[in-house]
């Protein structure tokens, strides 16, 4: 018989290293006479989209377009240290350093624009490569302003360093605020359990993630879908099996991870609750999607057939054994 159930998993996750461990990042932003910028950052993009995140933040800050930004990343010979791409921290820390670097350049661009327009700098803003004064579009472009900035000997490069190192917790009580920012998520999974074989099929997953401000919604969806797939593998199949210390699962032929046929449709819900300490209110989303999936699936199995799996992965054999004990 096949029985269906729905389960939920909730999680909170801290961004960055926390507990007094040094956690900071640097970036530089230089604007050329044509209004395009060059960014240097040590941030390593492993496919998660951090390079594009930096481009989007710098472009937003300078009122130019993402395609105007050229980035050099993760070269220890030339790029400033941005720390590792771990702890779901790059948007929150390096994104902020890049924003600060761009803001430094913006300061001298505003000064240049004010001089060209013969107005006070306070009302100047930049958007879509155009210069605005008191909300009204002017005849100037950001490129013209950048050229003037450089011709008049003003500063055309900015340097950003952002530090989120927190104080450690109290060594006596272990109490304190260990991290700079926290992120939250709830996921729901629907499963179908074959009571005779113990096989579990995940039918769908809905994943709601608080990301602060979504810098790149499509990339966030990608992160959520990937995290859910990994969480499904953790819940149902991934297992390092050892025989007296020797791995019996040394390759992906034995250590099974989900295939496209195992991963169900994932509905990603991006919850935007701005984080005041993040760049444009952004936090991170790298690891969180992998956290709530296994609990949601295990709870869904319980909801379907009333057995509680307490040791992962929930293989068909394990579930069949638990069902047997329940008299199925």
């Amino acid at each position, binding site marked *: 018989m096949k029985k269906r159930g729905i389960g939920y998993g909730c999680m909170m996750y801290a961004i960055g290293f926390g507990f007094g461990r040094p956690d900071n990042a640097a970036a530089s932003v230089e604007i050329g006479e044509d209004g395009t910028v060059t960014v240097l950052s040590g941030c390593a993009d492993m496919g998660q989209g951090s390079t594009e995140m930096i481009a989007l933040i710098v472009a937003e800050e300078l009122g130019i377009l993402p395609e105007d930004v050229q980035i050099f990343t993760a070269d220890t010979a030339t790029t400033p240290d941005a720390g590792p791409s771990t702890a779901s921290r790059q948007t929150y820390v390096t994104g902020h350093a890049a924003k600060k670097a761009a803001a430094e350049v913006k300061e001298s661009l505003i000064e240049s624009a004010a001089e060209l327009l013969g107005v006070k700098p306070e009302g100047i803003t930049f958007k879509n490569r155009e210069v605005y004064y008191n909300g009204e579009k002017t005849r100037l472009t950001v490129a013209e302003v950048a050229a003037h900035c450089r011709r008049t000997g003003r500063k055309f490069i900015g340097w950003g360093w952002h530090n989120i190192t927190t104080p450690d917790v109290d060594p006596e009580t272990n109490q304190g605020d260990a991290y700079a920012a926290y992120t939250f998520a709830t996921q729901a999974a629907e499963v179908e359990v074959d009571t*005779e*074989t113990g*096989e579990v*099929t995940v039918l769908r997953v809905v994943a709601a993630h608080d990301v602060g401000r979504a810098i790149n919604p499509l990339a966030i969806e990608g992160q959520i879908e990937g995290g859910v797939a990994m969480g499904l593998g953790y819940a*149902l*199949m991934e297992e390092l*099996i050892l*025989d007296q210390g020797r791995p*019996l*699962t040394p390759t992906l032929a*034995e250590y*099974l991870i*989900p*295939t*496209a*046929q*195992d991963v169900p449709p994932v509905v990603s819900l991006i919850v935007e609750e701005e984080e005041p300490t993040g760049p444009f209110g952004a936090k991170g989303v790298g690891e969180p999607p992998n956290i709530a999936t296994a609990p949601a699936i295990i709870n869904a199995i319980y909801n379907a057939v009333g057995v509680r799996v307490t040791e992962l992965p929930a*293989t*068909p*054999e394990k579930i*069949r*054994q638990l069902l047997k004990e329940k008299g199925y």
Partner: protein
Amino acid sequence: MWEDYYRPSTLDEALKILASCKGEARVIAGGTDLVLDIKKGSKKAKYLVDIRDIDGVNVIEEKGDKLYLGAGVTHTQAASSILIRNKATALAEAASQVGSVQIRNVGTIVGNVVNAQPAADTAVALVALEAEAEIAFTDGSKQLVKVEELYEGPGKSKVDSTSSIVTGIYIPLRERSKSVFKRLARRKSLALPVINVAVTVVLEEGHHVSYAGVAAGPVGPQPQRFKEVEEFLRGKTLTASVIEEAAQLAARLAQPRDSVLRGSKEYRKDLLRVLIARSLQSLAITI
């Protein structure tokens, strides 16, 4: 890894190359198993003789009261052949679940048999269907051998690929027969089966079984045929109690191994019972 790679266009030519290489040449088709074995060093070949250019090697056709498929027929071809889907459904279903798309596109049914793994999906189906392999030898002789008799042990075939070539497979066609293949693995694709089963029955108009073929893997050193279960089913109508009794009989007879990776002996016996019962149920419904 090898010195020369031959692509003969006739069977005679292929056999001549094997004969002249005196045991140092080996037959290759898809190579999805053989190339890995050569890399690992578990099989050696100074020369490889690729049989896929031989005329007619991809043929799937009815020959008299048998369905014939040539040695070059891939899993993808078998899975999508209307003839095989209609007349040897278990084989088509098994072929569609072997490995990945890439492996199915290249690997051949005959290769799956000659590689002699106890849980080879298509071999389990062929054993249930009582298929025969046609073997051609370097002296020009030919021989028909039942697929279930081609095994010497796990991973060891009686076919010597350095001096003979399996040219094709014959599956007997029986009036009013139906067949089905089922498997369970630890994920939905690209994983070795914990248990796979193939069942065929001929249902007479009075709904009783006049012929049955039942096979499964990996429950022994080779795809195992359950003749006692076939015997038990003969003459009976596929009622719920007959199906359950047949499935339990198979589970009692099976001797699967404990596998840390793929499941305990007990679970596999239990699963065998479930899959055989489900196979018979689906055949009982689709008369």
